């Protein structure tokens, strides 16, 4: 038995789970780059499909940016718990003497930093590509910051529910797209309001409330869903 040891607090367990996952993501940078690359490529498709008219693109930019954000979160959330399920880490998480919800949240946070947070940081570039007026860019970043929190947490619930199913990709979309509708509506509206000089703050406040609510509720659902997935 180890000579020097100290008991781990809940906070420490969260931090350890976070760092374990963050390190794993940093070691395979493709995980970080893929959602951004996806975003970049899909944004390119819109002018090709809709025509290069700058005015029209600018008008549609809030909607386009948010729909693509939703799609890229959809694309990545399927992988969230997949490797943990296969290599047995989830079993160990479920046995750990800490609430599964907290440990899963540690993992999801690391994941969000690598996907949603980076996307929010990089979003001005994509906004410029579509000619989104400068007045909307700050709101876009804040709305993505708050919105991707919700998207990631909801995506994590879907991923936890489908991780044990062999071909869960399509099912995952079906499960989480309807739940993501409010985030899409609030996000798009906030950015549009900001562009038109309206009141974006109240929409951002709504998104903040949604993000906090998701932070409170979703980890419990993630934990319960992971237990179900392990138990077969």
């Amino acid at each position, binding site marked *: 038995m180890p000579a020097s040891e100290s008991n781990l607090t809940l906070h420490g367990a969260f931090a350890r789970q976070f760092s374990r996952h963050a390190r794993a993501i940093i070691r395979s940078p493709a995980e970080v780059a893929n959602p951004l690359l996806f975003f970049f490529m899909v944004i390119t498709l819109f002018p090709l499909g809709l025509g290069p008219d700058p005015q029209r693109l600018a008008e549609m930019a809030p909607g386009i940016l948010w729909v693509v954000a939703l799609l890229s979160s959809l694309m990545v959330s399927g992988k969230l718990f997949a490797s943990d399920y296969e290599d047995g880490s989830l079993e160990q998480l479920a046995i750990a003497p800490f609430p599964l919800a907290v440990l899963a949240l540690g993992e999801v946070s690391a994941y969000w930093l690598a996907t949603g947070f980076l996307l929010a940081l990089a979003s001005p570039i994509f906004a410029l590509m579509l000619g989104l007026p400068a007045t909307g860019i700050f709101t876009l970043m804040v709305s993505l910051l708050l919105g991707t929190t919700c998207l990631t947490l*909801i995506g994590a*619930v879907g991923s936890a529910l489908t991780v044990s199913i062999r071909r869960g990709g399509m*099912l995952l979309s*079906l499960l989480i797209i*309807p739940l993501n509708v409010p985030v899409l509506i609030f996000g798009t*509206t906030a950015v549009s309001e900001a562009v038109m000089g309206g009141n974006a703050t109240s929409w951002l406040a709504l998104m903040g409330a949604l993000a906090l609510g998701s932070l409170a509720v979703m980890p419990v659902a993630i934990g319960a869903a992971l237990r179900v997935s392990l*138990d077969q």
Partner: protein
Amino acid sequence: MWTIIHKMGSPPWFFRFSGGLVKWLLPLTVCLLLVGAVWGLLIAPPDFRQGNSYRIIYIHVPSAVVALAGYYVMAFAGAVSLVWRIKMADVTMRAVAPVGAALTAIALVTGAIWGKPTWGTWWVWDARITSMLILLFLYLGVVALFEAYENKSAAARACAVLTLVGTVNIPIIYKSVDWWYSLHQPASIKFTGESAIDPSMLYPLLLMIGAFYCLFAVTVLLNMRAELAWNHRDASWLKQLVQGT
């Protein structure tokens, strides 16, 4: 209270009880549907603006109302299943999902048919229709998740988690779609306010809503009986029950 819950959890008891219930609920449903349909489609006066085409609300509105209520029934069963681990709650959830999905689909189709003469187009991104469409996705998600799991008790628990998350979300979804619609509302399309409905049209509508609730209950009960019969196909009580009647 506890004995009732416990009894409800026992398949033989439930099978006998639901058999009796269906026996009088089914005729009641048929009667209500017939009376409501005749009243609504033939006797109620035509709308002064929409003429006779409005009569589709006697199917559209009840199916939409019951479809939404069905989701809450499913969520309640899901909560019971998660907390008390009662098998019957799993069976209920599984029985409600396809019925709810069908009702939502009926509401959507009748809405589209109604839209053609009223707005001149089959599909309008109206707040209520859009909400119904999202509700359909929610239902289909539950049905698909149930089918995807091989272990059916695991499937029930997964669906319970999903429906509970969905239940928390439904008010937010409805509200957000409402706001979204009011922001983009085209001036030419206006809904006739529900408060303006005349009693001569309202009473048959209420009757039809009642009829649809009964229809929902009957189909769910029949679904549950079918599921139970399949699960216990080798059980002696079932053989006795079938041969006895």
